[in-house]
């Protein structure tokens, strides 16, 4: 698969308004977990949306190895998976129905679909909740269902947009452990979060962005070698003023 390279990626939404991403250049190494940090409105979700193919109109280039990401996505649609920040599933369907639906929408069928639904449910530990309606699940189960849907196609690049928001410490610990195990399988994971201790715990590389610009990027161990921790570095670069 190779390294994910972002070169001078800029984006602005239609109509009046400031640029959301301004010449973002990042190198996301193959394998491992890359933490993308930034205050609210920094451009993290926009960047994830561009990588996931939800947003068009960005300038600059994004490539996976030697191949433009857009071409790779067309050639091998299963190469990239997204776990969005929202509970992006159908609340009136059961967990099993949601998994089957999103699996089928990604081209899975028959025995393969059955097998992947079972595997994703097992990985996210939602087997006991498969028959329950999604809107009646706890916050932790909803997050795990969201993750399971993203893993149905076994993507080589996985985009995780704040996957632990609103869950209890037990579920968070489980999710972080799961994400770490996913990276262990040679998968490239782009991970955004506001919880800096999570990032410190599971990420190999990080980038901090604000106002659409990359403020710092590199191996986590190098970035925090001199300082007292990621929290201090983050506050020092993004300042204390409120953003929303």
């Amino acid at each position: 698969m190779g390294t994910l390279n972002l070169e001078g990626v800029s984006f602005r939404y239609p109509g009046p308004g400031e640029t959301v991403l301004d010449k973002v250049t990042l190198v996301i190494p193959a394998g491992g977990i890359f933490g993308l940090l930034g205050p609210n409105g920094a451009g993290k979700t926009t960047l994830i949306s561009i990588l996931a193919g939800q947003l068009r109109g960005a300038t600059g280039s994004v490539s996976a190895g030697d191949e433009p990401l857009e071409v790779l996505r067309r050639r091998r649609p299963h190469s990239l998976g997204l776990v969005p920040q929202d509970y992006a599933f159908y609340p009136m369907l059961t967990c099993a129905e949601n998994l089957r639906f999103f699996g089928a929408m990604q081209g899975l069928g028959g025995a393969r679909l059955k097998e992947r639904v079972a595997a994703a449910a097992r990985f996210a530990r939602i087997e006991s909740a498969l028959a329950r309606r999604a809107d009646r699940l706890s916050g932790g189960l909803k997050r795990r269902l969201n993750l399971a849907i993203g893993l149905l196609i076994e993507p080589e690049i996985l985009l995780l947009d704040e996957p632990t928001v609103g869950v209890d410490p037990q579920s968070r610990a489980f999710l972080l452990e799961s994400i770490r195990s996913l990276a262990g399988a040679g998968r490239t994971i782009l991970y955004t979060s506001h919880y800096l201790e999570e990032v410190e715990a599971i990420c190999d590389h990080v980038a901090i962005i604000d106002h659409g610009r990359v403020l710092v990027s590199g191996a986590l161990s190098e970035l925090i070698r001199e300082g007292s921790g990621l929290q201090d570095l983050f506050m020092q670069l993004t300042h204390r003023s409120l953003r929303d």
Partner: protein
Amino acid sequence: MRRLLALWEKEVLALSRDILGLAVLFLMPAAFIVVMSLALSDVFKGGAARQTEFAVMAADPKLADRLVRALSGDGFRAAPAPADEAAARDGVRRGTPSLVLVVPRDFERALGAPLDGKSTPPGLTLLADPGLPPTQLLAFRQRVLGVALGLRVAATMRRAGIASNADAFDLKRAVTLSVETIGGTARPSSVQQNVPAWLIFGMFFVVIPISSLFVVERREGTLARLVSQQVPFTLLLLGKLGPYFAVNLTQAVLMLLAGRTLVPWFGGETLALPARWDLLAAVTACTSFAAIGWGLFVAVCSRTLEQATVIGGVGNILAAAVGGIMVPRFVMPEGMQKLSEASPMAWALDGFHAVILRDGGASDIAAPCVKLLALAAALLAAALWVHHRRRVLTSAQ
């Protein structure tokens, strides 16, 4: 194909768990069909079904009796004469009876006087209930004038020395007049107006579940997720088309069944089914495409559930009010009838009436069907255009 089937299955599952949505689609039109078919049955039967009471107040009991006999029938029923004019006015004010004909003294003799252009003809007074339909009042007025003409002709003939009987000039006996309704084996009835009308109304209400689920999909991020999975927007729209087409066909079958079974069970008339089922299916399909197109357009334009419900619901009610669903078009004034031609529900109703009432052929449903299909295509194109313009799937920041 696998993805399309998955989308259809998802829509069916989502709709099957939306009890309110199912009630709106199936119970509401069925309830309207029963209630409105019964409520409007007299309007569609014409004067004969409505029994309007009248009384005649005349000093001469023989004349009063003759007038009562001549005026009775065809929806007008004689009531006892009030004691005096004050009682008559009081009774009419309360609607019992609805009409009182006040005949002055010496009326018959005055009728015998020659009409020479100098004398004024004798006067009659008709006291009328203000709640009486104008057509009923007009019919009774014409009947009174006809009877009075008969009396005058008889009096003139007597004056000329020709023996005659006023009863001989009763309009009801003048000729035998038979009315033949052209087209259709049965004449239009309340149930034949109301079944297609409220079926169309119910079919257009797919706008609510279509747009509501679409707003939920956008709000919850499922649409964005599907886009990231390379699902084209046109496929998502097609994913709505199949299930709601099936819903509309099911509505049509159930509402026709309601007209055949439910309405007569409540005491109304039985719906006469058309001979050409293929044409009925064609009109139903075209109406369905227009309704689903409307649903998709509202879905794409609405940002919130409230917007979807208000735009879809109010739009349907306005189209129904204008299009002859709530009030039959033949009772509307001319200007409103012209305006109703702009309502898609009126086009659909024209198509259904051509098949159900008039036993029409393919050429009779062609115009309404073409209009409905053109509307469906325009709404679908508009939905795609609005989606493109507003980038509805990509508003996350």
